[in-house]
């Protein structure tokens, strides 16, 4: 019987939480964007004229192919995170792309049309130095991989090793480069810094050393940075100290000849290390004798080696970027030079002569909200009339890829900065002009009856006008075929919808680029690149003023902090338009320890941001007189805490009226035993609807809802599986009182934690059972509430009841967050990002420490699920069906105007936006709701009543006559 009930219960629960989408709902409320990351290597598929592929390998260990017409992904391969999956080199030959992965651990060959793996081999250990394709008699058949101590040659067709040879004197010589000119010899170039270059020549056929010699070069420290092979095996190096080029014929000479740049009539910008750039269009032939020499940040020279003499073909000054490209037998040089402040121009030059090719100018528009161009990739092709046409892909500092066709048509841009979102917020969209007009009427002070009437009339007129124009648009659009009606999202037509389901997603990326994305469609509405962001910056985004305070614009503040120095800057902007605010943020000469947003507003409805510096002085932003006065009044009720994990110290401070602070509590966790890994408070915008839970016997168990509660997670310094543990401390952030202290023995991190309402859920790795486990802590005040009107941390003498239960979870997790709704009526779900790319919506109901071991009448009354140690992953709980979110790093939840609906954004390498309905859509009529039936039934009933009334009257009359 119990089992039957259990089954019934399960059925009920399942029915109430199934949230799968129907096939026709796919993509209706959700969208996904896939990214690759900052491009390291890129190659155009030059195999055929009509080819439309560019292959890229990125910093995020992603290897992908992009469609050059649209910028979309053809395919993408995501390798392991970190050095294990790092892409060291990309070589492209015909239909194959060769990748060296993981510091020379693997050599892979991919078929670039469909992205299939041809073969993969594991290379011998040793750190990777260089790789190149090796050809003979115009056919490229091999690839050489140079490692610290050995060189190996592999067949392109199947990856088999042809030969491997140890490098001579590899302890002293640093071999850095490998080169082949297609004559059956493989040159390995090594260096003993500030002494000599060591050159070893191997035979292609059997790996025997043909020649081995060394050349004096005391000025040289790095071959790859300052040398290049030009023409028929001429090793050319640039030296900034002597301002000269050194040349060495690898085949015959044993000494380098020095050519001072002055003798060529050239000058180098003082302090600039000249850079050589050569091109080898075909691996089976020697490189071209033309090469670029960069002599200044914006000056490049096209030089030619002609019979041992260097000839200047052309001087490009100013030139930002240069690149070679080859099509057929023609090699061209593309040069990007600044045109004006808003655009750059790109021109093609013949590599052989340095002459400018006609009609090849291309305009590259510089985005004022973007970074400077960083890298230029050129795809050249032969037109029908045998002239050279080209397209370019430009990578800018903000990791944006822009693809441009002649004469300057931007085909597409990819914002690869979005592959590394650090933090985000969702901001309500503003009201439309007309709505705002009406709102404004209420906001203003009454100024006379007559003017108010006029104002009302005028706003009604505006409304009428808007309605007519809307009707006209409907009529106009109805005549057009459906495909032509486009609903493009622009700043102008962004406005709040009825249920506030469409919001502006403000995303902050690690590169320092900010984005405003429309949450409904995923369109990037605005972007803003912040230059001079420190490399290891920490970001914190805060909404100071929402859109609710018309006519004041909404205001977001981004705190950017250098993790090393602690120095911080503020960027204040409008989250809807992305424009920098005219409000000048305060200068902060001191390192910032803590920032907190107060619910106090200044006269312009901007919330006050408090910044605590390392002298424990507090500064306010905005710091008007009004704000300072308010702060003085409430100073004694403002508390904040600081965490110093290096010393294990948590300390609480109170604000004084003169904006200095005083230390009021201290908790010290000894760092010898355990270290603090995370501190988690509650979200300030969280609402809890019900104060307690109704028990089986109709009494109420009140929740302990302390808004100041902090969950502190510690991990033991001892990592031995038997002795390691993780601790969880619940501390009141105002009084420093330790509410609860627990240790999870034989457990270790990484710990993921969610803290909300009266519960804390955390996930850890159990070293004893070797599995992931979830644990939930719930706090209750008991059956009586101490003070039901307000909560004050200073007046809650009784410690709460603590309940805890743990469960087995069958998967590791990447990130975790709880759903959030407007009023907190809807039941909560946990959104769990799994490493597999799924996002699981796990009802909180399953993580409830009151789940009974033995089912009783009361627990059944309460709808508690009987305890089962394992939490199952049901496939219908995946909210992203087949839309895998790769490497999910964070999940952001925001309430919408509908109580049932919570907006979810998962970000990692990809970005995925959707809506979840934890208690189903109880406040929304279904799509297939039968309005016809309801209204016809109503009408029929109405008429039936009328008729029967009439009949009754007749009957009464008849009876009266009788």
């Amino acid at each position, binding site marked *: 019987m*119990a089992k039957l009930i259990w089954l019934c219960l399960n059925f009920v629960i399942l029915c109430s939480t199934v949230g799968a989408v129907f096939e026709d709902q796919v993509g209706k409320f959700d969208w996904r964007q896939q990214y690759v990351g900052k491009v390291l290597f890129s190659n155009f598929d030059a195999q055929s004229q009509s080819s439309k592929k560019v292959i890229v390998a990125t910093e995020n260990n992603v290897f992908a192919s992009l469609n050059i017409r649209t910028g979309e992904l053809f395919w993408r391969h995501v390798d392991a995170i970190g050095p294990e999956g790092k892409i060291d080199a990309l070589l492209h030959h015909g239909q194959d792309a060769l990748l060296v992965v993981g510091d020379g651990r693997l050599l892979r060959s991919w078929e670039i049309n469909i992205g299939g793996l041809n073969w993969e081999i594991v290379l011998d250990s040793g750190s990777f130095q260089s790789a190149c394709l090796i050809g003979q008699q115009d056919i490229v058949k091999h690839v050489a991989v140079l490692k610290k101590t050995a060189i190996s040659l592999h067949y392109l067709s199947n990856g088999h090793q042809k030969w491997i040879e140890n490098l001579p004197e590899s302890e002293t010589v640093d071999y850095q480069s490998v080169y082949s000119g297609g004559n059956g010899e493989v040159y390995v170039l090594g260096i003993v810094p500030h002494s000599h270059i060591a050159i070893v020549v191997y035979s292609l056929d059997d790996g025997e050393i043909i020649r081995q010699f060394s050349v004096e070069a005391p000025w040289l420290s790095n071959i790859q940075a300052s040398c290049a092979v030009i023409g028929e095996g001429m090793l050319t190096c640039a030296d900034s100290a002597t301002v000269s080029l050194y040349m060495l014929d690898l085949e015959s000479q044993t000494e380098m000849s020095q050519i001072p740049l002055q003798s060529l009539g050239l000058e180098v910008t003082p302090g600039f290390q000249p850079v050589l750039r050569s091109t080898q269009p075909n691996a089976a032939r020697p490189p071209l004798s033309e090469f670029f020499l960069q002599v200044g940040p914006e000056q490049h020279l096209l030089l030619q080696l002609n019979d041992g003499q260097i000839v200047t073909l052309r001087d490009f000054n100013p030139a930002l970027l240069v690149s070679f490209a080859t099509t057929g037998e023609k090699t061209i040089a593309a040069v990007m030079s600044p045109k004006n402040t808003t655009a750059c121009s790109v021109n093609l030059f013949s590599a052989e002569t340095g002459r400018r090719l006609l009609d090849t100018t291309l305009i590259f528009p510089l985005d004022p909200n973007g970074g400077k161009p960083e890298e230029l990739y050129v795809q050249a092709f032969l037109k029908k009339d045998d002239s050279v046409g080209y397209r370019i892909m430009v990578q800018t500092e903000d990791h944006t890829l822009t693809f441009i066709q002649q004469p300057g048509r931007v085909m597409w841009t990819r914002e690869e900065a979005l592959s590394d979102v650090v933090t985000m917020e969702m901001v309500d969209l503003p009201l439309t002009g007309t709505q705002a007009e009406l709102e404004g009427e209420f906001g203003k002070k009454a100024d006379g009856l007559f003017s108010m009437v006029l104002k009302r009339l005028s706003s009604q007129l505006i409304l009428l006008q808007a309605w007519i124009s809307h009707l006209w648009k409907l009529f106009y659009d109805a005549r057009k075929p459906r495909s032509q009606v486009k609903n493009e999202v622009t700043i102008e037509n962004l406005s709040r919808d009825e249920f506030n389901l469409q919001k502006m997603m403000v995303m902050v990326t690690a590169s320092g680029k900010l984005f405003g994305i429309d949450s409904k469609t995923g369109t990037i509405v605005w972007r803003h690149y912040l230059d001079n962001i420190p490399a290891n910056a920490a970001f914190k985004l805060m909404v100071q003023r929402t859109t609710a305070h018309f006519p004041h614009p909404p205001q977001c503040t981004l705190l950017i902090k250098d993790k090393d120095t602690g120095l911080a800057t503020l960027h204040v902007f409008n989250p809807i338009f992305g424009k920098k605010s005219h409000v000048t943020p305060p200068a902060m000469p001191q390192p910032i320890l803590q920032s907190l947003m107060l619910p106090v507003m200044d006269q312009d409805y901007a919330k006050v941001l408090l910044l605590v510096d390392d002298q424990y002085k507090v500064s306010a932003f905005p710091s008007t007189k009004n704000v300072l006065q308010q702060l003085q009044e409430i100073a004694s009720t403002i508390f904040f805490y600081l*965490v110093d994990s290096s010393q294990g110290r948590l300390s609480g401070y109170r604000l004084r009226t003169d904006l200095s602070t005083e*230390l009021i509590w201290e908790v010290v966790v000894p760092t010898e035993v355990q270290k603090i890994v995370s501190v988690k408070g509650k979200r300030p915008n969280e609402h809890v609807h019900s104060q307690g839970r109704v028990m089986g016997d109709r009494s109420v168990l009140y929740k302990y809802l302390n808004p100041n509660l902090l969950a502190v997670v510690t991990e033991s310094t001892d990592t031995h599986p038997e002795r390691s543990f993780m*601790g969880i401390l619940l501390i009141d*952030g105002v009084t420093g009182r330790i509410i609860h202290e*627990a240790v999870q023995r034989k457990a270790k991190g990484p710990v993921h934690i969610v803290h909300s309402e009266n519960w804390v859920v955390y996930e850890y790795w159990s070293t004893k059972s070797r599995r992931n486990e979830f644990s939930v802590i719930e706090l209750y005040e008991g059956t009586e509430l101490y003070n039901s009107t307000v909560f004050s941390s200073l007046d809650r003498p009784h410690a709460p009841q603590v309940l805890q239960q743990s469960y087995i979870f069958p998967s590791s997790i990447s990130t975790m967050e709880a759903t959030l709704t407007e009023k907190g009526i809807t039941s909560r779900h946990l959104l769990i990002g799994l490493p597999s790319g799924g996002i699981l919506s796990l009802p909180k109901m399953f993580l409830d420490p009151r789940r009974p071991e*033995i089912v009783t009448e009361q627990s059944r009354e309460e709808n508690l699920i009987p305890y*089962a140690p394992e939490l199952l992953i049901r496939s219908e709980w995946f909210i992203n069906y087949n839309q895998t979110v790769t490497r999910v790093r964070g999940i952001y939840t925001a309430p919408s105007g509908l109580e049932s609906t919570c907006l979810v954004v998962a970000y990692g390498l990809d970005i995925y936006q959707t809506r979840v309905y934890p208690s189903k859509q109880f406040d929304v009529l279904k799509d297939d709701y039968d309005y016809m039936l309801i209204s016809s039934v109503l009408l029929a009933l109405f008429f039936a009543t009328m008729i029967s009334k009439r009949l009754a009257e007749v009957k009464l009359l008849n009876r009266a006559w009788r």
Partner: protein
Amino acid sequence: MALPLTFNIALFYTLFVVLFTDVVFCNNGRRVGDVMDTEFGGFSVPLEHSFEVDDVAQFRVRGALVLKAGREPSVALTQNQLSEEDRAKLKEVAAVDGLYRIRVPRVLLQADRQTERQLEGYLTAFVRACAMVESHLSDVISLHTDVSGYLIGVSIVTLPGACRGTEVEDEVDLEVFNTTLSVMGPVNAPGPETALFLERMEMETEKKGKNPQEQKSFFAKYWYLILGGAIFLVVSSAAQPPAGGGSEQS
């Protein structure tokens, strides 16, 4: 201020940015009261308190905590009475809504040797002075230790905890502390309860095996209901009068 004061106290927005790297000790230059071994195996550390009108902490000895190390550490407290002067001051501090702070030195409860017990620094906690006065000095102090016996935190609450502004007339009420003291170590968090669950499952299957009634088929179990239903149907159809006897109801 439209909101009650107590609500404002709760307005504590804990927006955690970054871990900071520098820490200021609140009371440099003051020596910790000497740790003393007592005859019954424990040792004593001073419990200090401070209440100043200008809220600049000046700690004085309130009493001595006698800690007893061991598997289950226990604690006892011997404390002095408040002097006349202190009582007046406490009431004064309460009048300006000042703080009553306490602190204990960081110690290790488990170590055998005295030298190992003492660590640098203090643990502090506070309560509103008015709460202390209105509760007639009845406070609850708990000391929290971590897994290895280090004291990590101290907390103080008064009973009752509220400040209602009631005058404490009788000076005698503020003479003697009425302290409840406890030492709390961390609780062991439970792991997943697999053993009990399996036991329950086993018991259920066993019960099923033992009780052959449970394994009866649907018809075998509910034959009487089905039979009853069938009889009812037959009877009701038989009892129905022949068609056409529709009663006129108007």
